[in-house]
């Protein structure tokens, strides 16, 4: 075995077939692969955003302190919902089904609060005249990029809430296992992870400082 192989495989004969080389269920590997692909999708949109922003000298910085505060609360809610998700997974692994379902409920609640706060902010911006195709403060691409990026993320959060709901009900009825809870957790943490990039790139870099 070459040195590289040792590093990659951990020095064990895990590729010989008849078993998963990662000692995880295939479904979990599938979710990981989906996350790889989806992170590249988000990456590409973020790169587009950065590309267009670099090319536009009149990129606006319209977010007043209130917006930043709102986005900070959203970040807090999403990060905390990740912790409740972890708790749900831990409970599920320990066989405490009722507790796990409660934690899943808390996570969904976090997602819903995030969505509500976000939509409230969207409505505020729309009220101020920001549109997908238009913006009074400068480059029209600001509105396009903002709504596309955050909209894509909000869609993921919403899908996540629905997904968690399905998993929670199925888990309570014994249709799903703790593995399914863990896999839905991967998705949820990924949505959280993406927000860790959108928050500074979209909000903090467009904060109105003076």
């Amino acid at each position, binding site marked *: 075995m070459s040195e590289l192989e040792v590093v990659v495989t951990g020095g064990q004969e895990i*590729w*010989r*077939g*008849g*078993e*998963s*080389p*990662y*000692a*995880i*269920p*295939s*479904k979990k*590997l*599938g979710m990981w*692969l*989906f996350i*790889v*692909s*989806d992170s*590249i*999708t988000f990456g*590409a*949109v973020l790169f*587009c955003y950065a*590309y*267009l922003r670099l*090319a*536009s000298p009149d990129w606006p910085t319209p977010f007043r302190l209130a917006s930043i505060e709102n986005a900070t609360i959203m970040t807090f809610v999403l990060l905390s919902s990740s912790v409740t998700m972890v708790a749900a997974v831990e409970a599920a*692994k320990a*066989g405490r089904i009722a507790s796990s379902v409660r934690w899943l409920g808390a996570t969904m609640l976090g997602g819903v609060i995030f969505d509500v706060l976000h939509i409230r902010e969207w409505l505020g911006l729309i009220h101020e005249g920001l*549109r*997908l*195709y*238009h913006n009074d403060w400068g*480059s*029209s*691409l600001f*509105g*396009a990029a903002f709504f*596309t990026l955050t909209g*894509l993320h909000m869609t993921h959060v919403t899908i996540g809430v629905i997904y968690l709901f399905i998993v929670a009900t199925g888990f309570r009825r014994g249709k799903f*296992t*703790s*593995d399914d809870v863990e896999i839905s957790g991967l998705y949820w943490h990924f949505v959280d992870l993406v927000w860790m990039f959108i928050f500074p790139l979209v909000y903090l870099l467009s904060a109105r400082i003076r």
Partner: protein
Amino acid sequence: MHDSSKPTTEHHHSPPQGFLWTHVFSLDHKVIGKQYYFLSLAAVLIGMVLSWLVRFHLAWASAAIPGLQYLSKVGAPGGIITPEYYLSLLTLHGTLMVFFVLTTAPQAGFGNYFLPIQIGAEDMAFPRLNMLSFWVTFVGFVVLISTLFVSDGPPISGWTAYAPLSAIGTDAGPGLGTGQVLWVISIGFFCIGSLLGALNFIATTLDLRAKGMTLARMPYTTWAWFITAVLALLAFAVLLPACVLLALDHLGGTSFFIPGGLVVSDKLQPHSGGSTLLWQHMFWFFGHPEVYIAIIPGLGITSHILTATARKDILGGTRVLVGCMVSIAFLSFMVWGHHMFISGMNPFSSLVFSVPTLIITIPASIVTLNWIGTVFGARLRLHTPGLFAIGFISVFVTGGLSGFFLAQPSLDIYLHATYFVVGHFHMVMGVAAIFGMFAGTYFWFPKMFGRMMSETLGKIHFWVTFIGVYCIFMPMHYLGLAGNVRRYSAFVDDYLAPLIPVHKFITIAAFVTGAAQLLFLFNLFWSMYRGKKAEENPWQATTLEWTVPSPPPFDNFGGRHPVVYRGPYEFAVEETKDDFVMQDSPQQPARS
């Protein structure tokens, strides 16, 4: 807590009942593989007819094609193709061929059918997802075909859909409104289908290998499908958002790909701030890996079939061949800029992109030399699949070598957007990949349908096709050298008019070659019902798909769990009666 070290899969389902569940919404990878195959077959037929129309128009621009006016009254009044309809047909031809044929048949079609069998699995890792990816792809296909029937026809912006032509809408030309939106939606669906399929392929290959099927013992085809799936998972993830943004430019009034100050049809466009180069970057970031998504399964299929044809392993074996395929796949993400040398991209980038582009020729040359070296001293059994595999080597060399020219930015100044490029990519990506598909069809048909295809018809098909493609695509290189620009619907200027006889020659060659494909089609359907019954291992090959009945039972191995004891291609073994040893044959200790 249940044991998570065992790969959990859904494949312990029982055989479904009823036509709808066995043939339409089947979860069986074999049925889905065939569905993909026939979807591609439909796409390739339409694509071929489109290419005939396009070629006919290039040779006889003012001649009428009887009956065409019924397809589009505006596009072909009296059967004469208008310049815009020419571009519509061209766009549809390119899109169908690249996405729904080259990406679909060798990977999703054959891959779905044979990957699980070759690694000794009962099914794919996620059968439901597998069915979903097929139906999503199918919707994409239907949406694309529907552009033929909307008011102003398919888009005229080519399969690359360069913005802003593709983003502005009907002001820029016919087909760029509804047609273009449908095109974007279709490709979006295709991306989703491909991503789901790729995910499934990767998980299947990694998790569901039978006992003893180490990575080094995977057949070349399995490796090729696996590498291609990785490429697809990473590349389609970039095309998908690009399609979303382009759709938003149409439907949401955004200007991602449209800069300010454009005056189209005497109207100042209400857009500003976008970048046309951004579309090109995103498209080709996907587009170059896509070229390898189309050809790597071909490399795998050719190598796989060449072993059974030559009765020996490929020179260098798994280590060299897979090493080369992996390096090609890796490099394919670093070279997309060679499509954009003269696009107005930063000229420094061109120099940077040309180096990895030229470096890709090294693994490609190694693979080719090893194939040629394999034929040396072989005991060739030139049945039809073998002929197509060897034909693949020849066209791959021809098409690949012209890449040397196009990889150099300075030569690309002259050759870019000429027929040289058309000849190059048709030869290396179109013809080579299609030769791979033909080889695969003739090779695996007995396994898929339980009957043999006619060798006589197959050989006629091979000879006409082999000579035909050289007659079609070699002259294109000469035309490009003479400066014949591509995507012209007619050659009206003084410079190009003298080249029309060459176009007539190409068109006639295309019709003859196309006719041979009808022979193939006849052979395919005739053999399905009337062909000679196939035995379990008609080609005396060694991999696991030849250890099961033809066609395989519902769960592939009839409840048996195959165990693999040796490498995939052990031919010319002296101790045995035959000159080959099956992968799951435990009789003697493996030689290596």
